[in-house]
């Protein structure tokens, strides 16, 4: 199947459509991404080309809308991605928030673009492995993503060997997963720690309880400047004073609204919201 065999150029349509649905900006050099990510959607819907997919979306096909948004927003991701932010979490961020919250013994962590769950589950593993005292605390890990398909997989907690290979220490695989056929199933004890919810960062947010730590990693890069500013303002509003924001390794912080103090720890930078 050659998706671009027809003369019609569907890229401008998908640029606008994806932006309208997810605020993700697809520049010209992302043209390949539309073709590679949407080819399976076209095939599974028994359509013949991207033009047919475009017309189905214009007719308001909701099922295809979900499939398209999922395909364009879901990425293969790794455990403990970039390593250093998780070391910062383990060695500095969590200890500091635990001291701050020792009176009420509660801790809230939000993984704001959790994809198929590797990030919130990595956080849960750190809590379980390094902070046994937290078993007497009320700890909530909220994990949200725009893509319904990714969230369904995250909730299921079943991962292929290819996914398991991506940055998960073998010792953790043995401790927190059990083999089920060709897949690895994450243990219930970790699954119970994470609450998955669908949330589109680019639209109006539901009410979210104040957070101690927000992981907003590798998602801002997809947004245009006004959306980035809106999302960062939302993050600030939902973070407790003294709470921490963790961004992706390659992400700019120029637009970070005032009130955050950059802290270098474990070879990375975390951002702490100033106390009032």
């Amino acid at each position: 199947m050659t998706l671009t065999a027809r003369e019609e150029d569907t890229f401008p349509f998908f640029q606008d459509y994806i932006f309208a649905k997810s605020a993700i900006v697809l520049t010209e050099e992302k043209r390949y991404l539309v073709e590679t990510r949407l080819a399976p959607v076209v095939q599974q819907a028994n359509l013949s080309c991207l033009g047919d997919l475009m017309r189905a979306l214009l007719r308001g096909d909701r099922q295809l809308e979900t499939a398209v948004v999922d395909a364009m927003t879901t990425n293969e991701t790794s455990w403990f991605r970039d390593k250093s932010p998780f070391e910062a979490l383990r060695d500095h961020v969590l200890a500091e928030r635990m001291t701050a919250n020792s009176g009420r013994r509660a801790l809230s962590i939000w993984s704001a673009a959790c994809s198929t769950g590797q990030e919130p589950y990595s956080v849960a593993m750190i809590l379980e492995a390094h902070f046994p005292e937290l078993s007497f605390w009320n700890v909530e890990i909220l994990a949200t993503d725009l893509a319904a398909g990714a969230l369904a997989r995250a909730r299921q907690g079943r991962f292929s060997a290819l996914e398991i290979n991506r940055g998960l220490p073998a010792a953790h695989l043995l401790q927190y997963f059990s083999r089920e056929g060709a897949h690895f199933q994450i243990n219930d004890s970790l699954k119970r720690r994470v609450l998955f919810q669908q949330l589109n960062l680019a639209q109006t947010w539901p009410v979210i309880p104040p957070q101690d730590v927000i992981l907003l990693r590798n998602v801002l890069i997809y947004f245009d400047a006004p959306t980035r500013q809106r999302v960062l303002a939302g993050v600030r509003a939902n973070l407790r004073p003294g709470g921490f924001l963790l961004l992706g390794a390659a992400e700019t912080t120029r637009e970070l609204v005032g009130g955050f103090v950059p802290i270098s720890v474990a070879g990375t930078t975390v951002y702490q919201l100033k106390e009032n």
Partner: protein
Amino acid sequence: MRALVVDDSRAMRALLTNILQSIGAEVTQAKDGCDALARLRSADRLPDLMLVDWHMPEMDGLELIKQVRKDPAWKPMTVMMVTTESEQENMVRALLAGADEYLIKPFTRDAVLEKLNLLGVHVPEQALAALTGG
């Protein structure tokens, strides 16, 4: 960084060598456990890293790792098992024998680099920044 790739498949040795060379490693190869031990014994300098397949003629990867861990002089070497064996009990056996990490075949280049990063093996920042993932 110096690395020794031990695998009876020429294609697999080439693939892993390629990945390691792309991050600046100096790579030597061995086709089984006996070959690997001979190379280690005659080496001027110990490799920093050894990637070991499980099933090989002459001496398999599990036995090679046990032999390597018997010699205190070879202790600083980081060892990762790279194998099609994906049963957890086999992972336990490999780790108990002295492997530091475990990678299941088939793997992607990104998976190799992420495991090396986990092991504290120097992976250039450019290579880490280019890793795929959402």
